[in-house]
């Protein structure tokens, strides 16, 4: 197992390198440069040249590239061209917000999507149940998250005034209390902070989770259909087990392996979804930061954010693979 993880981590290095190289060059192929973006329409040629020099962008591309890789290898992602904060510090601040959003929406997607998929598979012969569920899936697939987001904001925030319009809640406060141990000395405040985070999280997680849930339900439905056509399900039914037991004991558990893969994959999709979700809901986070960084041609920040995205996806894939062994004792890694 250890060797397997080690091997996978080694394989991750060229993957990360590839992603970092792609983003490095893609950012530079994009029309527009950071100085023009920063200094606007009125900048004189001399001012632009000064700016380019001070940012080190006058150096040959190859030199910039090697410098970037060398610094990244030392976990130095540089400083944001615009705001001057160290990129690693910036990302560390944004990361928890994105993490809770991704986790909440994946959990929501699983909680909504998997039962719907299962029911839809089991009741596929009763159109009154299967059809509405499939329509739900279709709706989720066709609704872009930014549109659904604005709709949710108008209904639940503007009209009904149940949820806040912007922000990520007091996540920093909650994390601070965990770090300092205040969580035990002052549990009421901690709960309030967590409540505030959840309050702010509900709509974005619903928007992102719902669009994901639709896909999850489709995939779980087909996974379930595969499983219930297996011989051992027929055997279970033949030996007289109740349908409930057949579904819970035999079918559901065997569905877990493909489901885990789906959920792993969904962490990746949810991550990309955060870009739009965070922008519409005005939440701090890696996605919103990435959009702004690309718009401003803030190379170090955009590179740092994409590197982190890549690392998350690689890690999630690895964790999912390792979880196979947990949910399916037949799987061993060597």
């Amino acid at each position, binding site marked *: 197992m250890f060797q397997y993880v080690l091997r996978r981590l080694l394989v991750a290095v060229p993957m990360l390198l590839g992603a970092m190289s792609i983003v490095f060059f893609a950012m530079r192929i994009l029309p527009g440069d950071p100085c023009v973006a920063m*200094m606007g329409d*009125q900048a004189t040629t001399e001012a632009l040249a000064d700016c380019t020099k001070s940012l080190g962008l006058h150096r040959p591309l190859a030199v910039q590239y090697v410098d970037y890789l060398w610094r990244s290898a030392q976990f130095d992602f540089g400083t944001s061209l615009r705001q001057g904060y160290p990129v690693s510090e910036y990302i560390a601040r944004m990361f928890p917000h994105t993490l809770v959003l991704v986790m909440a929406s994946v959990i929501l997607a699983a909680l909504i999507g998997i039962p719907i998929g299962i029911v839809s598979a089991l009741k596929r012969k009763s159109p009154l149940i299967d059809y509405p569920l499939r329509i739900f899936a279709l709706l989720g697939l066709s609704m872009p998250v930014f549109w659904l987001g*604005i709709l949710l904001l*108008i209904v639940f925030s503007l009209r009904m005034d149940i949820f806040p319009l912007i922000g990520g809640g007091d996540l920093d406060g909650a994390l601070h209390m965990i770090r300092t141990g205040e969580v035990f000395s002052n549990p009421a405040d901690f709960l309030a902070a967590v409540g505030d985070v959840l309050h702010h999280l509900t709509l974005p997680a619903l928007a992102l989770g719902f669009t994901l849930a639709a896909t999850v339900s489709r995939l779980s439905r087909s996974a379930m259909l*595969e499983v219930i056509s297996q011989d051992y399900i027929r055997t279970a039914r033949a030996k007289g087990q109740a349908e409930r037991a057949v579904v819970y004991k035999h079918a559901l558990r*065997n569905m877990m392996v493909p489901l885990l*893969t789906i959920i792993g994959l969904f962490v990746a999709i949810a991550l990309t979804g955060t870009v739009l979700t965070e922008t519409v809901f005005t939440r701090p*986070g890696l996605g919103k930061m990435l959009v702004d960084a690309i718009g401003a041609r803030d190379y170090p920040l955009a590179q740092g954010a994409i590197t982190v995205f890549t690392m998350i996806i690689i890690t999630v894939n690895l964790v999912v693979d390792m979880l196979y062994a947990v949910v399916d*004792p037949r799987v061993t890694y060597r």
Partner: protein
Amino acid sequence: MVGHPVPLTVMIATSCGRCTTPLPAELPSSITLAHRSDHKGTPMSSHAWPRFSLVPVAALATLLAFGLVALADPPAAEAQKKKVLNIAAKEPETLDPHTSILGQTQAIKRFMYRGLARFAIKDGKVTTSEVEPDLAESWTLSPDGTVWTFKLRKGVQFHKGFGEFTAEDVKFSFERQINKAPGTRFGVNLGVIKSIEVVDPHTVQIALKAFDPIFLLRMVGYQQGYIVSKKAVEKFGEQYKWNPVGTGPFYFERHAPREKVVLKAFDKYHGGRPQIDEVHWFDVPEDATKLIGLEKGTFDLLYPEAVTADFAGQVQKMGAVIDRRGPGGQERFYINMTKPPFDDIRVRRAFMHAIDRKAIKETMYPGGLARVAPSCVPPGYFGHIPMTFPEYDPEKARKLLAEAGHPNGFTIKNYFISKSFFYPKVLTLAQEQLKKVGIIVELQVVEHATFHENIRKNLDPFVLYGGTRITDADPWLSLFFDSKEIPDPATGNKGTNFAHYKAIDDLLAAGRVERDVKKRAAIYAEAQKRIERDLVCLPISDVPGQWARNPKRVSTPFDPEYGEFSLHYSYNYPEMLKILN
């Protein structure tokens, strides 16, 4: 792709490449069998799986979530106690006042910093063509017109205990820009300064290389004119951009990146503590979200990315107002009078008759979103007078072209235009109008930087240009009509006299040494008349700075429609904004 079940099987089968034993060939490629690498061939036994059901877990999680939500304090409650001004704009990228030209950054700076002078309030309006003392108490000019002596206001305090504002801070603020401290952008506007001398803590003398009629405008709290605390800049170094210390009505409290900047009322502000206790400057990139927030009451002021007719309509529908602030930016054409066929004044006149300025303005900025520009020196600039231009008349244009020897019009090949900002839109509209009189413009849409490069190589016979400058006719006319500014690739001159105009050099020279305000105004009036006579400039739209405001929550003493003139920010006096409830 993920919407279909098909790739799933492929995906799982692929994941089997991780297992060391190959999949038996006879196994169907089903999901369940994909991991049968240990080949027992039986389903998982129940003891391998902990007993739980998804349903109670889901119910528990939901209950917990909503339980906690109920516990949380309504966030609005605290805000009600304090008078908090909530602004939705983009996030500033720095709070060092000498470094950024971005709109949102320039707007927030004005909350924190002040200069020696400020734009004057006259007849209940803020004008950008006259100034009055602010951090200075008074000033005098030496008889030869080259030494300004500023008496500074006593007892003005910097934020956060950085002490009293003194002449040292003035000297430091200007010198760091003249010496091009990293990141500073406005030193060029202080190029006229020869030396700065601290006479005593409350007196500073600034010697100029020559008399400068607009020197006091340069001292206004705006871009280069802001005074920073020397102690703070020296203490924080590069970190100053997020540790700003000024003398303005609000001080910087904290910055939550990608979330908000919090400012607080400065008790010791020399103009008196503002009525507003806190300013929360939210980073809201989406205009749609800003509008929802204005209607809901989350935001009181919006700085939109783009004010469209739809945006203005929605603002009006919800009972909010748009604060329009001149002079804003002007979009205009300069015609190169040395480039055939435009060297013939009849062709230039035909060009102007062919352009329907009102139609372009209405398409770009319907209704009140902008005004048809009345002069080549925008209103709000010292010296502005209204000018007249050939009215829209394609028939006359065709006649003039025929007279000038172009009965069938002519074609301009490889006309370069920027792909950014308003440029491509305005030019496409003009292209259609010119086509009607036989002037065919073949467009090459290029990167903004290429456009700037090419217009300085005189590749375009007429140039569309925009922007805002220090609000006086001298810098404006000097930039666009002084013969020294004629771009010339041979000499490397990258000036902006795209008309290649030489007829007002004498007036500009006279204006630069004239100290009598009325005489200066007359000089620039004459300059505008000559430009009008020679038909080298056609202004299209004056586009104001525009913010949306909830008038039930926030009041300003100035009229929403051009009650203030300002530069790159909308509120000259944020301390005069008041929270109403």
